């Protein structure tokens, strides 16, 4: 999970807080992100993302938030706080007591939350090390509270300006999801330029037989001066089952204004990682049917760039019904649809008949597809 990846990256510096002077860095990112989902149309998000990093000899606190406004309407507000306290080290060993708290709320009132206690034991020196840890917490996906947990093992090394982390963590979410995330990150700092890359594979234990999924991406930051940087990032991230955020791919470009450039590479990694956090699901479902009165339903569709939108189904005797444009990118129509299960098709710009996003798809017997719409 990306959050776990975040912890992995942060852990590069946290095992040795004594070596780093006490420092506080604040920053705010402003930019635009294009996000693609597997079964939903892509969306564009304009975001503001403040962050605060506090490093003290025996403690650290990282906090950030993301306010995203989506093209066509809707917004989300997400936040994450992660803190750690370090027990004074003994020889090459040090104990970290850490935890995190995350949550989100969107314009429709949906909320998610996730908290995790995560102790670790570190072993290593200034250039390489290992850690073992575990985590236990609860996640709220807007519908159900689930217990989440993980065990992790990772190693890291620094070679001049290059820092690498490789780790694996068995995860469980609720009583039925078991998987292992294996992931690696690499980071290179050269003058004004900072480059990062990451990749991972999720292998499933339960349900048995589920195919592995992978993700990966890269970031590049260029500091124009001590306080201003341009950050570009692209790639993919896996689903966050604790909060119910879907997997997605993304492409982002932001401007970062900071109180100062973080003096250590690792201090920057946590910030750039913000671009890798899974964004909350699209706020306005791409296709929605709500009851106006009786059997009259309001059909709404988000279709950026469309010139015309039509739907048809058994409830229209398969006569196409045009939707009317309502606001930017949204189309709607009031149509009589009785309660029950219906077959439905949709087309945009007089193109081929397809299925509204997010809807189960069936073969239509005529070489095409048809969606299944359940109306209560």
């Amino acid at each position, binding site marked *: 999970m990306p959050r776990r990846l975040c912890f992995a990256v942060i852990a590069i510096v946290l095992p040795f807080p004594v070596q780093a002077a006490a420092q506080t860095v604040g920053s705010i990112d402003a930019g635009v992100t294009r996000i693609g*989902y*597997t*079964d*939903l149309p892509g969306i564009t998000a304009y975001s503001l993302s403040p962050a605060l990093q506090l490093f003290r000899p025996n403690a650290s606190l990282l906090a950030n938030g993301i306010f995203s406004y989506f093209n066509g309407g809707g917004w989300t507000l997400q936040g994450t706080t992660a803190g750690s306290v370090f027990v004074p080290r003994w020889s090459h060993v040090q104990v970290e007591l850490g935890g995190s708290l995350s949550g989100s709320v969107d314009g429709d009132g949906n909320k998610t939350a996730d908290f995790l206690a995560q102790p670790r034991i570190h072993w290593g020196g200034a250039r390489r090390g290992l850690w073992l840890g575990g985590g236990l917490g609860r996640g709220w*996906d807007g*519908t*159900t509270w689930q*217990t989440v*947990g993980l*065990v992790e093992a990772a190693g890291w090394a620094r070679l001049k300006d290059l820092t690498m982390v490789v780790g*694996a963590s*068995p995860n*469980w979410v*609720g*009583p*039925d*999801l*078991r998987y*292992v995330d294996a992931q690696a990150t690499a980071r290179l700092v050269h003058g004004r330029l900072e480059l990062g890359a990451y990749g991972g594979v999720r*292998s*499933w*234990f*339960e*349900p048995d037989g*589920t195919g592995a*999924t992978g993700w990966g991406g890269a970031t590049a930051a260029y500091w124009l001066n001590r306080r201003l940087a341009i950050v570009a990032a692209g790639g993919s991230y*896996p*689903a*966050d*089952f604790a909060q*119910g*955020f*879907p*997997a997605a791919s993304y492409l982002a470009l932001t401007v970062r204004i900071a109180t100062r450039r973080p003096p250590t590479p690792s201090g920057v990694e946590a910030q750039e990682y913000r671009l890798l956090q899974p964004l909350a*699901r699209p706020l306005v479902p791409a296709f929605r049917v709500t009851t106006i009165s009786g059997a009259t339903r309001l059909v709404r569709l988000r279709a950026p760039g469309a010139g015309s939108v039509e739907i*048809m189904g*058994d409830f229209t*005797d*398969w*006569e*196409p019904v045009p939707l009317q444009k309502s606001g930017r990118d949204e189309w709607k129509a009031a149509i009589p649809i009785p309660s*029950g*299960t219906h*077959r439905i098709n949709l087309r945009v710009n007089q193109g081929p*008949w397809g299925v509204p996003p*997010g809807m*189960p*798809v*069936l073969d*239509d*017997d*005529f*070489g*095409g597809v*048809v969606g*299944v719409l*359940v109306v*209560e």
Partner: protein
Amino acid sequence: MRHFLLFGLALASAGALQAQDPRLEGRLDPTTQAAVTGLLDSARAAGLPTEPIVDKVLEGMTKRASPDRIVAALRTLSTALRSARVALGPGAPEGDVIAGASALRAGAKPETLERISGVRGKAGLSVPLAVLSDLVARGVPVDTAATVIVHLAQGGATDADYTGLERGVARDIGAGAPPGAAAAIRARVAVTEGQSNGNGPPPGIPPKSPKEPRAKIPARP
């Protein structure tokens, strides 16, 4: 005798008019019209609902399918309706038969329909069978979907429980969960919330030993 023949002709004409749905008038070529009329007559004689057949013709015409393809689709649909009628019994409401035909076409077995019908009784089958078809269309393995639906029925689930299950599974799949796991998990929640009589193992999930810790972490392969 002459009056008898006239009466017979009148009956035949009435039957033809009845077979001809007004929505189809003048929209089919004579050959296709004859085939459709024959299928409608046959369905009516077997006590099968005819609306899905008319609906399928309308869909095919709007999508500009060839007459042969339309007739082939109607034959497949008629077969499914007939099998659903057999599985659900002669007294089953038309809505249940239509939903049953969809479930069969999604891959459910007639025995599954019989089991759900036996458990649900007069509670109606259209919603659970529609949800069954929906789950399969979302990628839930048909055996898992059938197990979930039957298990919920055994637990006394209401129509609202089924639609809630469908919404939850859709959401989980949208979040990236494997379809089979999503269905099993949501069914487990529905059963837990909807009953407290502990009806055996959770649906779609093999029973676990009570001694096995719930949060046991699997060893790495």
